[in-house]
């Protein structure tokens, strides 16, 4: 869940909570006011009217008639207000007991009967209103704090769920767009995103469509670029083949003694040959490869032989390659590609490490169930600018004038190394050491090979 998710979610939730509590608060007040007023008003008018009619009966027909009315069954019996009629001595007409000190006692009328006796009309429930709609509505909240909290929790949960769903519908497509952009940036040009939008028809779906169009265009352009590079290199091989034969002929005509200029031409044509070879290797590795993989290599021995070669060549340059290798066993690989990859990384380290320093090469086995080899090559050079470390394995990338100008390479060695490692289902990564210098780590999966003879 990203920051955007929480932002939208919290604002949705907060808004929803505010609206809910506002609506409840408003309606409660409204209902309480209008309800209480209307119902009480209606009720007290009815009470008054009934009291008046009872009073009239007693005044003109005497207490016996009043008694009859009090006793008469009423179709709205339950709702009929209970009136008590008291004579001047305080005796109730029907002999019912009544506590005149009760708080809800209200006297409605005082009336003189035809025999001169004065009667008082009293009711006990005049002030108790029937529970109003608002009261009914609020009743659950009035029981106890626990119930109140329960209801609050339900409201919170409900609003949270709604906000969560709303937020997801917005952030999920954004998230998948983001993921696609990352994949595309990481080099997966096949990435498309519109199909994840399902039946969406809105601005985000449009954005996804546009993204796909962009990715497609990018893919075509890059494909063309690579194809062009590969085609040009292929085409260059014919003139180069002729150049080499012509050079051989010229050399013959000089009876084997080559002038400096011819030697120079030979050197440069070899370099050109090398460059073309590297471009073609790279493009072949990138285009899903045609390389076989049926050599069996002892990786520890391979690394050792490369380190020996390096140490032999730098003899006297005050540099050293130190090797710490475990016996790692045998892997099935393309010997040529793997040797070139490892050799390139190690030679690079030797080239960039400062005089009087060491390059350390460590090889060990890691993991228990799926075993892999871990080769780490660290130099004591100036490292690579942090911003450019990701481009280290890209073809034709010259990182800095300091690091690359005098290397004599084409900026293809590490690019080929990376693709060769990927071809072997491995990983390659690089980082600057805090104490200076660059580390390159290569991880190769080990297939267990049945027997070792």
């Amino acid at each position, binding site marked *: 869940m990203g920051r955007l998710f929480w932002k939208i979610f919290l604002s949705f939730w907060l808004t929803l909570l505010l609206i809910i509590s506002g609506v409840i608060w408003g309606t409660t007040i409204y209902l309480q006011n209008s309800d209480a007023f209307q119902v009480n008003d209606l009720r007290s008018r009815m009470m008054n009217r009934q009291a008046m009619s009872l009073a009239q009966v007693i005044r003109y027909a005497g207490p016996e008639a009043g008694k009859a009315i009090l006793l008469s069954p009423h179709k709205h019996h339950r709702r009929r207000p209970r009136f008590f009629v008291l004579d001047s001595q305080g005796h109730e007409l029907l002999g019912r007991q009544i506590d005149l000190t009760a708080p809800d006692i209200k006297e409605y009328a005082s009336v003189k009967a035809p025999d001169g006796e004065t009667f008082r009309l009293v009711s006990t429930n005049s002030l108790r209103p029937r529970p109003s709609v608002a009261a009914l509505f609020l009743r659950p909240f009035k029981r106890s704090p626990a119930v109140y909290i329960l209801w609050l929790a339900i409201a919170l949960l409900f609003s949270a769920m709604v906000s969560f769903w709303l937020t997801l519908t917005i952030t999920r497509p954004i998230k998948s767009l983001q993921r696609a952009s990352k994949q595309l940036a990481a080099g997966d040009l096949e990435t498309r995103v519109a199909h994840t939008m399902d039946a969406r028809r809105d601005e985000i779906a449009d954005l996804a469509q546009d993204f796909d169009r962009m990715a497609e265009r990018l893919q075509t352009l890059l494909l063309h670029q690579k194809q062009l590079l590969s085609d040009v290199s*292929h085409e260059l*091989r*014919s003139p*180069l*083949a*002729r*150049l*080499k*034969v*012509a050079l*051989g*002929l010229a050399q*013959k005509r000089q009876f084997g003694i080559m002038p400096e200029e011819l030697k120079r031409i030979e050197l440069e044509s070899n370099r050109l*040959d090398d460059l*073309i*070879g590297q471009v*073609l*290797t790279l493009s*072949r590795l990138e285009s899903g490869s*045609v*390389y*076989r993989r*049926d*050599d*069996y*290599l*002892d*990786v*520890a*021995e*391979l690394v*050792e*032989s490369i380190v020996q070669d390096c140490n032999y060549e730098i003899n006297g340059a005050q540099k050293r390659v130190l090797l710490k290798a475990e016996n790692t066993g*045998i892997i099935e690989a*393309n*010997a*040529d590609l793997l*040797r070139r990859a490892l050799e390139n990384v190690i030679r690079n380290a030797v080239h960039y490490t400062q005089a009087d320093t060491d390059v350390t090469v460590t090889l060990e086995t890691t993991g228990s169930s799926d075993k892999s080899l871990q080769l780490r090559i660290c130099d004591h050079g100036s490292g690579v600018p942090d911003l450019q470390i990701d481009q280290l394995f890209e073809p034709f990338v010259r990182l800095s004038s300091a690091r690359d100008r005098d290397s004599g390479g084409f900026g293809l060695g590490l690019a080929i190394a990376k693709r060769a490692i990927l071809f072997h289902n491995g990983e390659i990564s690089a980082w600057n050491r805090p104490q200076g210098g660059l580390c390159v780590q290569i991880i190769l999966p080990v297939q267990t*090979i049945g*027997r070792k*003879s």
Partner: protein
Amino acid sequence: MPSVLLVDDDQEFTSMLSDYLTDEGFKVELAHDGQTGIKKALALVPDIVVLDVMMPVLDGFDTLQALRKSSHIPVLMLTAKGEDIDRIIGLEMGADDYLAKPCNPRELVARLKAILRRSQSQTNSPISLVSGDLEISPASRQATYRHQPLELTSSEYNLLETLARHAGHVVDKETLSEQALGKPLTVYDRSIDMHMSKLRQKLGDTDQMLIKTVRGVGYQLAR
């Protein structure tokens, strides 16, 4: 004077290479497409054919396949640089050697001479090599053991054939690597041992009676 037939569609290249090879004491014939190449190879019967892989219409592999139906003239293939798979296919189809183009003409001459030396020493190459219960026919690249055909990979077959050619003698790993796998032996390469172990499994040779390991040197096929 050894004769060589150059088959390549690049006419400027072949004419210059022809000059170079003539200088080196070869008698050179030229062909600029596969069809002509086959015709000339069958008609003139040169000592060796240099065949470019990348040709229009009939490419080097097709030409080689057609040629091998009726001829065992040694063939050197000029493959695209670094096309690993070309080399493998070429060797499996019966090419005698390969060289990546663009190549150094000096190296080409050295290779041609090496192939010629080899083919002269094996002029009457046997139809089949028999060693005990093992029978190998190089023309069809088939091997049978106790009259049962063996299902071998290309590398395994090559190793077996190389051993059979020197049956009774120890063949060192350098030779095996060069002749059977087409690459120089390196200290870290265990391919020969691995292929040999699989070969033994297929032969049912668990007690190493058929193929003996000579520790530190190489292998020996019992005669």
